[in-house]
């Protein structure tokens, strides 16, 4: 039996999500027995051409040549899985979206004419069909390994869609929003991290993106009641996964409120 061929690709990102795969260490060695790692530049100089059974794509689309690269990956891959906040929502670098790109380039480059960049940083699914999205900044290693092994067995991985808030209750953590006045995105953020921030006595800041049908407006109300200004509440949503539709919409609404006051 031939082993499924898996490839890892990177767009605009910090490398952290593919590092989760390298950090799996012995689990990666086990996995390497079950699959053929056909292309994984960060870990190996053995880079095989496609086709691939599974492509893992990290990073957002923010340069023109990445669109072509992505289309080629899509063509050559049976399943395309996006990994991380950048690939699934545009990432933190999407904070520049809506701003003046020329101004952004001028600010960091002495010769702006050399810089090729798209106006926006966008998720992979805006450009090609994606079969599975793993959110997180970074993704959770267990969720990734689980998803890969379920796919290898021919089943569709089921990912948690409940919020961090539920996870926190399950683990018996003290609520940081209630007891510490910490503006916590736990009620509206998909779980996956294990509720690390509340465990470390701080508010969730949304690494895993919106949970299923998040009631963001109610949470904003709580933030304002805790003394945050509309602009401060807006910036809670406009952060690591700020371009995910569930958070972007609420940030826009709060932005209007901030402008009005």
């Amino acid at each position, binding site marked *: 039996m031939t082993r499924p061929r898996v490839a890892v690709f*990177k*767009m*605009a*990102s*910090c*490398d*952290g999500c*593919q*590092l989760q795969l*390298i*950090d799996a*260490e*012995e689990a*990666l*060695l086990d996995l*390497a027995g079950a699959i053929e*790692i056909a292309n*994984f*530049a*960060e*870990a*190996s*100089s*053995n*880079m095989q051409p496609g086709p691939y059974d599974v492509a893992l794509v990290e990073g957002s689309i*923010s340069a023109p*040549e*990445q669109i072509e690269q992505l289309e080629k990956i899509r063509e050559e891959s049976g399943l395309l899985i996006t990994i991380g906040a950048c690939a699934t929502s545009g*990432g*933190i*670098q999407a904070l*520049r979206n809506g*701003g003046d790109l020329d*101004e*952004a*380039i001028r*600010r*960091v*480059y*002495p*010769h702006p004419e*050399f*810089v*090729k*960049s798209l106006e926006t*940083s966008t998720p992979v699914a805006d450009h090609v069909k994606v079969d599975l999205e793993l959110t997180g*900044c*970074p993704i959770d290693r267990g969720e990734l390994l689980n998803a890969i092994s379920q796919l290898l067995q021919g089943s569709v991985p089921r990912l948690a869609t409940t919020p961090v808030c539920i996870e926190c209750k399950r683990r018996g953590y003290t609520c940081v929003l209630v007891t510490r006045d910490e503006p916590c995105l736990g009620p509206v953020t998909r779980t996956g*991290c294990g509720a*690390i*921030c509340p*465990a*470390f*006595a*701080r508010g969730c*800041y949304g690494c895993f993106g919106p949970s299923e049908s998040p009631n963001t407006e109610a949470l904003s109300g709580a933030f304002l009641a805790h003394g945050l200004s509309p602009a*401060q509440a807006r*910036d809670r949503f406009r*952060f*690591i996964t700020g371009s995910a539709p569930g958070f972007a919409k609420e940030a826009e609404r709060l932005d209007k409120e901030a402008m009005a006051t």
Partner: protein
Amino acid sequence: MTHRSVEIPVIARVEGEGALHLKVEDDRIEDLRLEIYEPPRFFESFLRGRHFTEVPDIVARICGICPVAYQMSSIHGFEELFEVEVPEGTRELRRLLYLGEWIESHTLHIFLLAAPDFLGFHDAIEMAASEPELVKKALAIKRLGNDMMEAIGGREIHPVSPRVGGFSKAPTARELGGFAGRLEDALAELPGVAEFAAGLPLPVLPREVEMVGLVHPNEYGINEGGMGTTAGRTFPVAAFEETTHEEHVEHSNALHSVMTDTGLPYFVGPLARYNLNEAHLTPVARKAAEILGLAVGQNDPFYSLAARAVELAYSIEDALRLLRDYEPPDPPFVDVVPRAGRATWATEAPRGTLYHRYDVAEDGTILEAKIVPPTAQNLRRIEEDLRGFIPGVLDRPDEELARLCEMVIRNYDPCISCATHFLRLDIQRG
């Protein structure tokens, strides 16, 4: 006239993505381009307008391999500007967290990224098939670094607990207690690690170069100190942007770091730190240096791997020292009141000096940000090394020549993801 062209479209086993284009005519390098095609992410632009409390979480995202370095350079900078005094325990816990990152990153580089080059493997997975014990030991040390970061920071990639003023929560002595035994076990492996590294057939390329790093009167420079160089100069971190200079090269959109007065490239990283901080090394680290034939004054960049192994030993020994009388800082964080002004700070990321500057408004809003990552400072040196190295190996077939060039680049453990959050490189000369 013979033309020869060697292309490495994707440099493997480095963080981030780059390419090398080399054209040779007769025995002369006609064109050499280290191309970094990773797109810019404009951090310095979107940091503007954010609150200082958000900065450590934002800048961590510049690099998945060295997030602690980014968090620390920003946190220390703000604390100095805002005149925040943190308890000694906070200082020690930060160093412990940072050492976890050094242990993780150095082990990753030595065994998973660099070693396969010398042993004829494509990657550590192949290497594990024929050297299972070696890879198993390396992974255990790497896991130890990761676990330290997870225990202190909540997770090893983008830790959540570090904040301006301290930690959101500090682990108890009991929570960190289990690490002493594991660190002792790792330390026992270190002479073997040094012997392994000493046995790797490294190329030789001694050259005159000024190396730059953080120096501190009482300890191996990591979190705090002033700048020092192997040419004997010292300067405060606040003078970093005057003392070094990012030069714009003709026909290129690259910024290359050079010393402002000499106009010459310098380099940062483990070998620079070793040369500047050797006096603070611990016994096993010294022993490792001896095994590796590393001595102060060594200017061959290929000794970077040796310096990394020495620093790995040092990191483990220093972590043991810090753990011995660890008491959690109480309170875990102190209150911070912002004020207007300029924050500058540098810390030592695993791959070298990481400089941050923030101009801050009275209410703590960021007005301007400037970040100089280690790999950006080393890019010019990497290119110079390639120019020095290639003429001696032109007799090799293309495939081997390409592999050797990759080794020269990989030797700096470059983090292209870091380097390109603000610059895009396309070297064209000739």
